[in-house]
Structures are given as C-alpha cells and as structure tokens.
C-alpha cells in the first residue's frame, strides 16, 4: 500500500481523545448551568439572582409561608388571579388589549409596579399618573400600616392620584396597590433602609401570590403597530439559515487543499560582500576615519608605486617626489594627500578619496 491518507478507523483512533475531552467539557458546562447557583433572568423575575431580579423577595415570602408562583402568559394569570394577589411586575410587556380586558374582569387584589397608562386604565380605572418623581429614599408620611411599619424606603418614578404614601408614589386605590417604581423589590436594593419590610408588607398581604412577569411582549399594542421582527416574513429567517449552509459549503469547497504543503530544505543565502559592507558600516558607526583613510592611501600607494618604477621598499620622500614629478602637483600637497593626518570630518574624508583618485588617474594616464 502506498496510501498515506489515514483510514476512518485510524482517524477515529487519533481524534477520539480530543472528541472525548470536548464532550466532557460540554457535559460539565451543561451540568453546572443546570444545577449551579447563578440564574439569569429579566428584571423583577423571581427566578433571577442578578441585582435586577427578585429571587430574594420570593424566597423571603416563601419562608413566611406564602405561596409564590410566577406566570408568564395572560391565560395563566387570568386563571390564577382569583383568590390571590396578582403582582404585575412587568406592565410594559402587557400590550394585548384583549388580555388586559380579561385580566380586568377577574376580581382580586393587585400590586401594580410602575404601571403603564394602558395597564393603569384596565386594572385601576380612574387613577391618573404623573411621571417625573425622582427615585430616592422617602419617608412614609401617611397612615397606611404597611408603609408606617416599614419606614423609609427607596421609591419614586410616578405619583398617582389617590395615593397618599411616600409623596404619592405608593398608595392603595380600591383593590389595586400602586407602586411608582419597582427598584426597592430587586435583589440589589432589598437590604437597604426599609425596602425589604415595605416589599414584604405589600406583597405578603395574601397567602397566595401570582407573580405576573412575562419575559417578552404579550400581544400587539392597540392600533396595529408592528415591530420590525414581525414585519419580516418567516421565509427570510430560514433563507438566511440556508445561506449560512451555502457559505459553509463554499468554505469547505475552497478550503480543501489538493494534498499537503510540500516542505523543502532551502540553502543559506549569504552575499559574499556582506562582510565588506558590514565592515564599512562599522567604520562609519564608529567614525573610524583614521582607518578608512589609511586603507584608501595604502591601496593607492600599492597600485601607483609599480607604475612609478619604485619597489615596495621605497621611502616616503622618494614616493612623494616621484608622484609630484609625474603629476606636476605641489610636493607638499602630494605629501598631505598620501601621508597627511586623519581627515577632520566626513566631508574631508570624501575629499581625500577624490584627491587620491586624481593622483592615481594622473599617474596612470601620464
């Protein structure tokens, strides 16, 4: 066999460890999510343990023997409304006029938390709301027993006609108890001031509490205004999913290589002149003009002395005299160029190099 592609069995053998580890991680995460302590949820949801949730209040009520049940649909709420305290925790989601009318038709006590105008109209007819009351700690300032016992509490939001306590933000009008803001019921705020006491007094008035806290809007508001999601036909959602499948298949098609990448041992690439260039840069970095000038002068002397008929043992005076005679330049200047001092700057070095070139050319051409 020349095939180097692993068979399915070999592939399973090499991947089963990884797959097993992945499965274990997913399983552990699921177990922790299902049985773990923390629960997410919406505002004033009695399952939620977040600061915005109301799990603490529900647990306190249950510890007092109160039966607390959360409902999320109109049907359940209507069914359970009679003989229990109906807490409308999320009035902004109660937009179905028929559902509200059905709820209004059932007798029973209600605790309306920051009701919207539509909810107020249906469940506490005749009461008007004035929004704009600041949310802050207020004194009860009324005769209501629940408020007097609780003392100071964090209230605000809206004030209602007919409500007497906490500057009109909390009050009892007929069957309905109105609260301008639900903040004091939340897990986060419950321990502060008299919040817990007020919440227990208001919600614990009955042995059964129906906690109506939907997690999404129920029904469409009157007047037929639809949200953008409802305007999009259902086909489009599935079309997008089908496109996702198409993109996935395209990625698989384009992403598959025809065979593995071929590796190759490449040779070293070193330019032979690199050492010379490096030495030049070193000269420059250290401003080694003395060494540079010496090298240039030596090279010119080595090339010109044979042309002058002199040997390598010729002395300085001899060479200067011969060069001066051959080129016609001044002897002092020739001596300065060939045997002078170190150039004082880079410009002087460049000038020296050019002077040496001139001498060499004149000797060669003369």
């Amino acid at each position, binding site marked *: 066999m*020349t*095939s*180097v*592609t692993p*068979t399915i069995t070999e592939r399973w053998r090499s991947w089963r460890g990884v797959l097993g580890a992945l499965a274990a991680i997913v399983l552990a995460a699921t177990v922790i999510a299902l049985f773990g302590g923390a629960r997410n949820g919406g505002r004033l949801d009695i399952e939620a343990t977040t600061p915005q949730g109301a799990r603490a209040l529900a647990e306190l009520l249950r510890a007092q023997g109160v039966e607390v049940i959360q409902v999320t649909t109109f049907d359940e709420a209507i069914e359970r409304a009679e003989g229990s305290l109906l807490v409308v925790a999320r009035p902004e989601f109660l937009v179905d006029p028929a559902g509200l009318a059905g709820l209004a038709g059932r007798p029973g006590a209600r605790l309306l938390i920051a009701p919207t105008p539509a909810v107020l109209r249906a469940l506490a007819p005749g009461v008007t709301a004035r929004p704009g009351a600041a949310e802050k700690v207020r004194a009860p300032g009324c005769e209501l027993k629940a408020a007097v016992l609780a003392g100071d509490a964090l209230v605000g939001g809206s004030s209602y006609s007919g409500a007497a306590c906490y500057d009109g933000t909390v009050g009892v009008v007929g069957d309905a108890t109105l609260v301008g803001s639900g903040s004091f019921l939340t897990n986060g705020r419950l321990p502060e001031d008299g919040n817990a006491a007020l919440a227990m007094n208001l919600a614990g008035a009955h042995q059964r509490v129906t906690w109506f806290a939907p997690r999404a809007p129920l029904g469409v508001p009157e007047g037929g205004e639809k949200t953008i999601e409802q305007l999009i036909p*259902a*086909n*489009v*959602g*599935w*079309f997008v*999913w*089908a*496109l996702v*499948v*198409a993109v996935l*298949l*395209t990625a*698989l*098609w384009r992403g*598959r290589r*025809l*065979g*593995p990448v*071929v*590796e*190759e041992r*490449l*040779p*070293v*690439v*070193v*330019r*032979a*002149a*690199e*050492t*010379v*260039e490096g*030495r*030049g*840069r070193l*000269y*420059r970095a250290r401003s*080694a003009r003395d*060494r*540079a*000038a010496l*090298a*240039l002068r*030596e*090279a010119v002397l*080595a090339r010109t002395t044979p042309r002058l008929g002199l040997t390598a043992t010729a002395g300085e005076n001899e060479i200067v005299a011969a060069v001066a005679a051959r080129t016609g330049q001044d002897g002092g200047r020739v001596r300065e160029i060939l045997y002078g001092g170190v150039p004082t700057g*880079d*410009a002087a*070095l*460049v000038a020296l*190099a*050019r002077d040496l*070139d001139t001498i060499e050319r004149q000797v060669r051409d003369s």
Partner: protein
Amino acid sequence: MALTGRAALLAVAGALVVLAAPAPALAFWLVVAVIAVAVGVDLALAGSVRALRFERSDDQRVRLGETAEVTLLVANPGRRPVRGLLRDAWPPSTRPAPREHVIDVPAGERRRVVTTLRPLRRGDFTAAAVTVRAVGPLGLAARQGSHQVEGRVRVLPPFLSRRHLPGKLARLRAIEGLNPVQIRGQGTEFDSLREYVVGDDVRSIDWRASARRADVVVRTWRPERDRRVLIVLDTGRTSAGRVGVDPASGDPSGWPRLDWGMDAALLLAALCARAGDRVDFLAYDRAVRAQVTGGGRGDLLPGLVTAMAPLEPELVEADAHGMVAAVLARARRRCLVVVLTDLNATALDEGLLPVLPQLSSRHLVLVAAVADPRVAALAAGRDGAAEVFEAAAAERQRVERRQVTARLRRHGVEVVDALPDDLASALADAYLNLKAAGRL
C-alpha cells in the same frame, strides 16, 4: 473527502427555494437533507482513491537550467472510474507544472501523467505525495487521498564553462604539436619520429635515425601524459557566500562560491581528461563530502557531476589539517593539487597556510578562488561618506587578499584569482601553462 463548487451552488439554489416556499422551515430542512443525501450518494459512487496503484519512471538526471519530465503511471484496479484531479507534488524550487492534472482513469485501465520540472537549484529532489481527488458522478463531492510514490530527480551542475572547452582544447593541441600541422611539440616527452618537412625546426632532427634511413627524420615531442591531477573543492562556510549573478535563474543575489568552483573544476577535469591526465576529485570541509577516484576518460565527467550534484555548503569552518591529510592519503605520487577555496585572509591564516608546506613539498599546489565583483564596485564608491567608508573597507579587503596571494606564491603555490565568469577559463589556462612548461 472534498466538496465541489457544484455543492455550494446547489445550496444557494436551495436557499432561493426556501425563500419562495410556503413552509420555509420544512423547505429548509428538506434542502439540507437533499444536499446531505446527494453528497453521500456521490461519495459512495466515486471511484476509490485508496485502491489506485502508481508507478513512476526511473530516477532522472537533469542539468540545472534544463527541464525534466517525470512520468507517473496511474492504474485503477477498482470497479468504478476515477475522474477528477491529480497533483504530483514536488519541492517548490523544482517548479512542477502543471500544478494539477485532470485525470480520467476508467476501471481496470492505466493512464500516464507527465509533470514538467524546471529546477532552480542543484541537488537531489525527492517526490512528495501524489494526491488524487476523485469526483463522484453527480459532481458534488469527491474522495481525496494521498499516496507516497518514490521518485527522485538529481539536478546536476550546469557546466556552463563547457563553452570554453573547444578553445582550450585547441590550445592543448597546439601545445601537443598536433595542430595545425605536426610541428615540434612544446613538451618534453618523446613522442615519435617522422619525416622532415620544410618548416620543421632543424634542432629537432634526429641524426642517428636519419643515418639509418634515406630520409631526414625529425623527432616530435609532446607534453607529459598520464600525470595526476587532484581537484579539491572546499565546501566549508566560505563556499556559501554568493558572488556575481546566478547564471541559471538570473538571480542577482548571486551563485555560491561552491557552484562557481564546480563550474571551473568541471572544465579543468574535461581538459585534463583530453590531455591524457588522470583526474581525482575530493570535496572536503570537516569530512570527505564526495570523491571520485581514477575515473577513466569516458565516464569521468558523468561521475564528477553526479558526485557534485548533492553537495551543499556546510556552515562550518573547513578543517585544513584534515584536508591535507586526505590529499596526502590519496596522492602518493607527485601530482597537481588544485584547491578551489576562497582567498579569505583570516580563514587561510588559521587554516591552510600553516599546513601548506606539507602539501607543497610533495606536490604542485594551485589555489583557485573567485573574486567578488561587488567588492570592486564598492571600492569605486565615492558618493557621500557612507560609500567612502565602504570603499575603504573594500580596499582593505583587497589589500588583505593581495597579501595572502603573495604569501601563497612565496610557498611556491600557483594562485588563480578571477572574477566569477572568468574563473573556469583562467584555471584552465593556468593548467595549460603548467603543462606547456613541463611542470606537472
């Protein structure tokens, strides 16, 4: 497995169906199911890649700069045809073309696939995997698998300097006295007697032989034959430096000194073989990398290029002691030792120069090196301080090189220091000069 563009197209068409369908959820799952089933069926009906059998042509040799054609026989012993793509993968610097072949091998038949290689580098190249993608009858999905099929291409040195060979051979014949008419050869070895013709040097008349015959007879001479030449190629770190312009690919970063050295060595070897000398070859850095001993005239060059092909510069300092020992072990009789290395002052000071007397006392040594044209260009730079500093560095290196050359000559060593393009010719000339002077 692999998918094709057709599968993706099918998914897009399915998406349009979902958009128009009265029950989109059902349509979506239906489309997904149809694609999955079609892909599955296609995979099941595609020809088996695993069962394919491959056969490759024999190992090939090709000179650098030429193209090699490697053929691959694909046999399909399965019951279904294998239709799709095949890739015969080779290392990238061999530039295999085409990258992928369209193949259609009916059940039980064989097909030939030819891939053309145009190598950029010298050396041995082994085939990587052969990958086949067999598309199913619907063209939606394919089976893919790789096979390891042994195959090797040896890329030989290009021997570009062979263009100098006719000229050098003409010179050799002139030395041997064979051309244009048989004149008195310049050698010192007696060749034969022949009749005197007008123009012959009267000094070469053999009076004793003339006395025995009616005609005047002259002696002809020719250079010594059956001398031994040992070419030593230094594959140490200095041989990695790149010089000149790569003649095979035109790469301006240059060709390693090693390759220029090989080129010169090949011309010298060809010339020696024609001149009747025995050529040995040795590549050395810290160990013997390659050697060719006593090649006959016919198979000398093929043996040499084959031995040279896989050589690479080793990034270590060459061991001159070991090299001299290896040379002395191989050359018992006096011979010409040609060392192809670099005239690097530091490397030679610490390496070859201390041990050179051992070699030069018993043999005639010729050191050949490539000069870097870039150093000459740098030495002429005068624009600004940076160039002048580089020019000074270049001059310094040339001075060192001259000094080292002078010291080598004092040891009685012949030195050939030439630009890359001229090295082979200069080395051949040096050999011919030695031969004409009877110094071998």
